[in-house]
């Protein structure tokens, strides 16, 4: 026994030695004092099951952890589990219907009690309890039961074959919560447990000491954290509120804070702030694409309750040459440079990442071609017959209403695109809508992005994790928001193609990763080559940290604060 421990210790120190040499920041837990983080949107709760918001997920990730999570490259790494189960290592059954997780031995909660497979099972029960309104229900889709053969083993059983079984207990969205703490908070009782929701007991590097909703919370290092000498910081102050510019200023210019999240600022503003020399901008790219959708249904207000219904085709956006010309007129390089600078990349795909899923069949969109666009319209018979500067055909004028949410960068995009479209003879009226209305789904409001009562709309979307199946499933015919489904669904352009639907059905039963990639690319290419969706920019996530803060590894596939246990203060 003694020998074994000693050997293990030796192996561990061997493994750690190169790292310790690389940057000498090993030492006692809590040696580096306080780290201050600012999120310009404040977290309102620390229970990610009750709020799906990014700010809540990331704040909670300091405290509670999943069995496995994604690293900075989007690879799954074991976290509370000993290893990531796969078919190869026998953790996932051949029929893809069960997945067996083994917990690391000896894990304890911050209150000192052991973490067991019962807690894993409970996390599933908590989220799927009737009347709880769990925000992460999607993660536990098709789970029929979780078995706990022993204290360290949890077996998840699915009702259907899951080619991608890493929904439950993986990523910042689906962490493990303590059964002992939340046992009385199931279902409709969830909101009554304010103390629990504001101060969950976790296995993570920090423990909440004071939580003020939508304002600030403080946490101290978890004395029972599984890795010795971590976290380097004794306490965290996590402040919320203000705006992105103020958060950037606090890190770059005044040095009051160490880390600022998601600085959605114009690149010249950010670069100007960084000149002060106190902070550093970091960026990472996930799957977010700023895109324009072209409506295939007629949304003329005169149609009354027939607006946007599939039987009423759009008067001119159903003409592919119009859509193509609108795409050709856009200078994506310029947009990206102005709006995102080095935090944006060019893309011609609505599915730009991971690399295996990214198509290269559409790259012609990268070059703006105003003359070509005019030619396409001309050839399709759209000419300016009445001399008002805008093209028309058979009494129909090319005139679009272009809506998006209120946001400085989006308004710059709107202004630029309006100019280009008007140059090729498409009249453009801009409208910007408050984000809480635009992204809401109030059935009484005509301004939601799902109703899409405009000809053109623009926003950013992405998908969780690395598997695009659910994302690509959004553009099948039955996903079109219609009055019959209370305007729910992700196919906002109300595009419908049998070929696309067939590919989607095939993907649902395909397990091989290369085959899945081929299908996803083919679906992407249909959307691109039909010009239903015009991708504009592959957006990175950009945050900033003080130059004195070490160990930051920006992660877009999981919580940005995923490795806060490894953060440390660079002396000097």
């Amino acid at each position, binding site marked *: 026994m003694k020998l074994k421990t000693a050997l293990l210790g030796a192996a561990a120190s061997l493994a750690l030695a190169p790292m310790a040499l690389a940057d000498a920041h090993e030492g006692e837990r809590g040696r580096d004092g306080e780290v201050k983080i600012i999120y310009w949107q*404040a977290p*309102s*709760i620390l*229970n990610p099951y*009750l*709020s*799906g*918001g*990014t700010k809540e997920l990331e704040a909670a990730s300091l405290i509670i952890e999943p069995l496995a999570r994604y690293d900075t490259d989007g690879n799954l790494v074991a976290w509370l589990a000993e290893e990531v189960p796969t078919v190869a290592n026998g953790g996932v059954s051949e029929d893809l219907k069960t997945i067996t997780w083994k917990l690391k031995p000896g894990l304890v909660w911050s209150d000192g009690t052991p973490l067991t497979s019962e807690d894993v099972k409970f996390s599933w029960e908590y989220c799927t309890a009737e*009347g*709880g*309104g*769990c*925000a*992460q*229900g*999607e993660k536990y889709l098709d789970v029929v039961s979780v078995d706990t053969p022993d204290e360290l083993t949890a077996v998840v059983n699915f009702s259907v074959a899951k080619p991608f079984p890493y929904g439950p207990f993986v990523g910042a969205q689906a962490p493990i919560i303590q059964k002992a703490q939340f046992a009385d908070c199931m279902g*409709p009782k969830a*909101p*009554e447990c*304010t103390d629990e*929701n*504001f101060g969950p007991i976790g296995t993570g590097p920090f423990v909440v000491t004071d939580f*003020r*909703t*939508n*304002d*600030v919370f*403080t946490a101290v290092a978890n004395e029972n954290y599984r890795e010795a000498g971590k976290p380097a910081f004794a306490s965290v102050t996590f*402040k919320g*509120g*203000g*705006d992105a*510019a*103020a958060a950037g*200023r*606090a890190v770059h*210019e*005044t040095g*009051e804070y160490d880390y600022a999240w998601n600085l959605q600022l114009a690149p010249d503003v950010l670069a100007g702030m960084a000149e*002060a020399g106190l902070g550093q901008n970091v960026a990472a790219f996930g799957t977010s694409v700023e895109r324009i959708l072209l409506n295939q249904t007629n949304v003329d207000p005169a149609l009354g309750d027939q607006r946007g219904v599939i039987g009423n085709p759009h008067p001119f956006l159903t003409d592919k040459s119009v859509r193509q010309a609108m795409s050709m007129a856009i200078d994506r390089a310029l947009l990206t440079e102005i709006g995102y600078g080095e935090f944006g990349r060019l893309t011609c795909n609505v599915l730009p990442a991971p690399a295996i899923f990214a198509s290269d069949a559409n790259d012609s969109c990268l070059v703006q071609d105003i003359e070509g666009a005019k030619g396409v319209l001309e050839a399709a018979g759209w000419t300016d017959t009445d001399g008002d500067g805008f093209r028309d055909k058979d009494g129909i004028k090319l005139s679009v209403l272009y809506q998006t949410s209120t946001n400085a960068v989006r308004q710059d995009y709107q202004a630029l695109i309006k100019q280009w479209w008007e140059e090729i003879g498409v009249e453009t009226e801009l409208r910007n809508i*408050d*984000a*809480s*209305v*635009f*992204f*809401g*789904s*109030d059935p009484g*409001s005509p301004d*939601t992005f799902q109703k899409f009562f405009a000809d053109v709309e623009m*926003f950013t*979307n*992405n*998908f969780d994790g690395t598997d695009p199946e*659910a*994302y690509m499933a959004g553009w099948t015919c039955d996903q079109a928001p219609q009055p019959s489904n209370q305007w*729910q*669904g992700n196919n906002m352009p109300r595009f419908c193609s049998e070929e696309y639907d067939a590919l989607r059905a095939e993907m649902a039963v395909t397990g091989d990763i290369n085959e899945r990639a081929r299908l996803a690319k083919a679906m992407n290419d249909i959307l691109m080559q039909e010009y239903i969706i015009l991708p504009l920019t592959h957006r990175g996530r950009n945050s900033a940290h003080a130059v004195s803060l070490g160990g930051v590894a920006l992660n877009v596939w999981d919580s940005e604060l995923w490795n806060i246990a490894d953060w440390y203060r660079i002396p000097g």
Partner: protein
Amino acid sequence: MLTYTLRRLLLSIPTLLFIAFVIFMLLELAPGDPMASMPLTIPPEVKEKMREALGLGRPWYVRFPLWLNQFFIVEPQYWFDQTFGTNFANGAQRIISFQSRSPVFDTIAERMPQTLWVVGMSYVVGVLIALPIGIISAYKQYSVFDQAGTFVSMIGFSVPPFFSGVLLIVVFSVQLKWLPSIYDTTHVVTGWDSFVFQLRQMVMPVMVLALQTTAQVSRYMRASMLDNLGQDYVRTARAKGMSESVVVMKHVLRNSMLPVITVIALGIPAIFGGAIITEQIFKVNGLGQLLITALQGSDIPMVMTITFLLAVLIVMMNLIADVLYGILDPRIRYD
């Protein structure tokens, strides 16, 4: 006067109930969805379940009486239980915020200290500066003091806080590094040093807000004083040989206070409504920030409760102002 006050107090009950109803219906009609701030990756079916869990599935005529019951019966019961250790509430559902799933009154209480420190203090400071400026400006009309006062207060009023606040931060926090740009709401004053820190973090927001109050109140004070200084009774008082200070401070001032009282009374509810933009810029996170995040997140219980509390304050303050009119000018009769 007493009967008038009592009658008004009684009348304010139906008034407030009506106001509550109007606010509720307004929020009900307003577009917006508490699920709008959720990431787009959460599927619509899940969002629908979350909406149901928030109680949004029920019609307004069920939810409005429910809110009334919670506000007027359950919440006072909890308050009473907490104070006297009784158990009247018996576990009844309190008003719960959609965003944080916690009782809204707890959050409101949490926001009071910084709201009072910053917004309340700026109001007191603003009024205390404004009154003498208004009086002197009127008494020495078109003097250098009056001209400077007018100039500064009008410029101050017309520069929006989203500009003046950032300007102050750029100068005092970024360039000079004298003052913190982010307000620490967890700071507790325990001794001299922490008091100095509190002062340092309050200075900028208080300055921005006080400028607005000062400008407004001093303009009304000056105008009203000017009106009264020209009146016959002032000439009479002077002719009687009263000293100038008695004439101005006692007679003119008292008669000039009516519009000023109105403005000050209307400003007090606004303190508790917070200063949305200024709070946002200095990250004070008081009631203003609470209200705006609740509005943006369509957190109906929170918005409803805060606006109704403000309505109560508005009605009460206007009642106090009306009573004060009668005291300041006994000729005003309400009966």
